[in-house]
């Protein structure tokens, strides 16, 4: 596999020391600021540079390029596979998150399918329903990783680009085919639950209204104090640790918005009857979490030619100037020639462990590595 990265910046346009794969790249992973992804010219510009490539990407809350985190840019990572074939599919404005997942899985050829990368609108898709339907249709042995598009801290409109289609309300999948492609993946958090455990007493899908009979919004306002004016972004400081039953592996849910009826919109379902605890960032553990995710990938596949990092925008919100430390922690694990790309997202998709079913996460660092053998 050969890989190269080019960056677009305001004023300078596309920058690249070399464009060796211009005529041979089959895939371009494109991540960028929402207004840049949504430009009419972006797709045409990429196709002009990489005419034979399938363009697959989304808007972000920050682009990862090597160990850097870049805003107000486009980062294109072109890949030329030696043995691997790819196929893309997308669904625009599906009737429901369920049908989006189902139809997307059906749109991909299943024969010889090794792995599926998924990118989704970050604000209009119920991650749990989408993933449930997607996995039900895909062959059981095929793992799925990916993420939800971001839009900085705007929480207004996200975009997915799947070749000629660039729009919001889009879910897209990239099928990777061939037995010589080795894929490893891992996801880690690094947040600490604190305070009392609370019973979810009123919720609807991914909208939470009450915990222990108290308004969830009021509780967040109480905990945030003066920062409550920055909701819903400020809500990322206190994600929820959610478990259904004692002994279950908890999942983390991030606040993504506030409904007009006062409900807090989360990145995944918060079913009534489940237990939740507020979580807070632990800086060292967040960075250590990213490092562990990379190490897990390294254990699963000794070599990584391309590493796709999808990290939750909430991590960036709390790590602030230290955010690059988590990308650096990942880079330390891999070889110097491993190309790092990725983005800060509104949700991550990855199995808890190798071979398990993909799950929808928030607040995590999810890494997928690709290598051809």
């Amino acid at each position: 596999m050969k890989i190269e990265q080019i960056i677009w910046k305001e004023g300078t346009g596309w920058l690249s020391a070399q464009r060796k794969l211009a005529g041979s790249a089959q895939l371009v992973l494109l991540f960028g600021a929402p207004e840049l992804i949504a430009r009419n010219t972006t797709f045409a510009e990429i196709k002009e540079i990489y005419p034979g490539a399938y363009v697959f990407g989304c808007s972000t809350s920050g682009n990862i390029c090597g160990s850097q985190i870049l805003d107000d840019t486009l980062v294109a990572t072109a890949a030329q596979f030696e043995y691997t074939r790819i196929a893309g599919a997308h669904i625009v404005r599906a009737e429901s998150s369920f049908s989006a997942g189902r139809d997307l899985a059906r749109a991909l050829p299943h024969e010889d399918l090794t792995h599926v990368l998924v990118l989704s609108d970050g604000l209009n898709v119920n991650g749990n329903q989408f993933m449930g339907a997607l996995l039900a249709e895909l062959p059981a042995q095929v793992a799925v990783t990916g993420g939800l598009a971001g839009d900085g801290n705007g929480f207004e409109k996200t975009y997915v680009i799947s070749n000629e289609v660039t729009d919001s309300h889009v879910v897209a999948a990239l099928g990777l085919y061939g037995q010589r492609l080795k894929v490893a993946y891992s996801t880690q958090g690094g947040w600490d639950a604190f305070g009392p455990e609370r019973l979810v007493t009123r919720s609807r899908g991914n909208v939470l209204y009450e915990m222990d009979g108290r308004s969830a919004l009021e509780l967040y306002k109480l905990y945030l104090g003066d920062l409550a004016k920055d909701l819903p972004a400020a809500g990322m400081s206190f994600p929820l640790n959610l478990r259904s039953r004692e002994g279950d592996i908890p999942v983390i849910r991030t606040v993504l918005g506030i409904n007009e009826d006062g409900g807090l919109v989360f990145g995944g379902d918060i079913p009534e009857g489940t237990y939740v605890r507020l979580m807070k960032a632990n800086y060292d553990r967040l960075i250590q979490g990213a490092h562990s995710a990379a190490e897990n990938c390294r254990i699963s596949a000794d070599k990584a030619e391309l590493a796709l990092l999808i990290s939750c925008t909430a991590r960036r919100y709390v790590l602030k100037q230290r955010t690059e430390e988590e990308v650096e922690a990942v880079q330390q694990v891999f070889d110097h020639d491993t190309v790092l790309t990725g983005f800060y997202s509104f949700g991550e998709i990855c199995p808890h462990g190798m071979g398990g079913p993909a799950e929808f996460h928030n607040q995590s660092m999810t890494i997928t590595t690709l290598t051809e053998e």
Partner: protein
Amino acid sequence: MKKAHPLLQRQIKRYFGGQPEPLGKWEKFLGAVNQAYWDADQDRVMLERALELSSQELLQANSEMRAMIKAFPDLFLRLDRDGHVLAYKKGEMERSPLKDGEPLGKKFYTLFDDSNAVRLKAVFLKVLENQAVNYVEFALDVGGRHYYEARIIPMECQEIFVIMRDISERKIAEEQLVYYSMFDPLTNLYNRAYFENEMHRMEYFSMNPTGLIICDVDNLKVVNDTYGHDRGDDLLKEVARVLRQAMRKNDIIARIGGDEFAILLPDSDAAAVEATCQRVRDTITAYNNAASGLYLSVSMGSAHWKSKIQKLDDIFKEADDKMYKEKFINHIKLNQDLLKSVFDQIGMADLSFRGCYQRINTLNAQLQMDVKREGNEEEMKLLVNLKKSNRAGSEYCSMETEAQGVSDLDEYKSFIRSLLLLLNTALE
């Protein structure tokens, strides 16, 4: 640059003697440092606030939990994973299930008697294995029979919580409920619901012939009306005793109505059913010969269920019809016996019914005069009834030579009842 953080201002003052002018290429660097200071402050304030609020909430939850534990009379034990008691609250049970001595540090199941210790240990190990709540009920003889329930709950901190409560009242109530759902409390025989269930169970599952006997106590109403319901109840108890005496252990004897009994005879052919009926009759005769109490008469009907083609409901009807036939005959005989027994008491043993009727008329007239003299309202009512009875008696007397003797049973019963009332009054 954003307003300089107070710490940065002090540091600049300390190390540069004031504002470093010009900032030049340091401006961006100092801006980032300044932002980091403000961010750190913001995070610190937010986390301190979160810590304080969550501490308050946990304190509140703790206080509520303590109040709850205090309010419950139950015994609480907190255990480590090996079952050692780490903490406990003895509770306020009437009788503690714990052995005497200090529970702290001991394996919790050793605090109970040996038989219950084994069960409690088994459930404890199951909870450890499954990490799910489990419970066990056990009984102890601690100043009488007491029942306890132990709920064993795994905690997330790898410890185990045990709640024990005295459930004696509930267990007794449950046992009573079970009893009343199956038994007739007066006779301690099975009740109708149980009998019907058994009947249908046998109908579905039994491959063997089954017998059925229906018994009806004769003239229970007369006894109730004459001597009161307590004597009537005594009569029913005697019937139950007699039936138990006459039946086998696996026969199902039930009181299915006020004066009606039914017996299911498993594995019984026609001869066995008839033999059982005869045993009942013999036992009653023996009872009447020996007893100094109430005269016992029971009408019986029996049937025999031969194959699954027949429905037990039809068999029941067959036995019931036979019983009513016998009852009709017993009715006349019993009333003759009863009258004779009554007349014996007032020296009219050699009188015929017709003579009896005349004597009663005489008594009636005499009493009527006494009542008028005394003006007793209750006795006036009695006399009115007696007049009515005499009319019925007159009719009875005119028909007594006819076959079966009686055409209007209700009136005849009324007559007999009035006679007995009159006699009781006269004897008083």
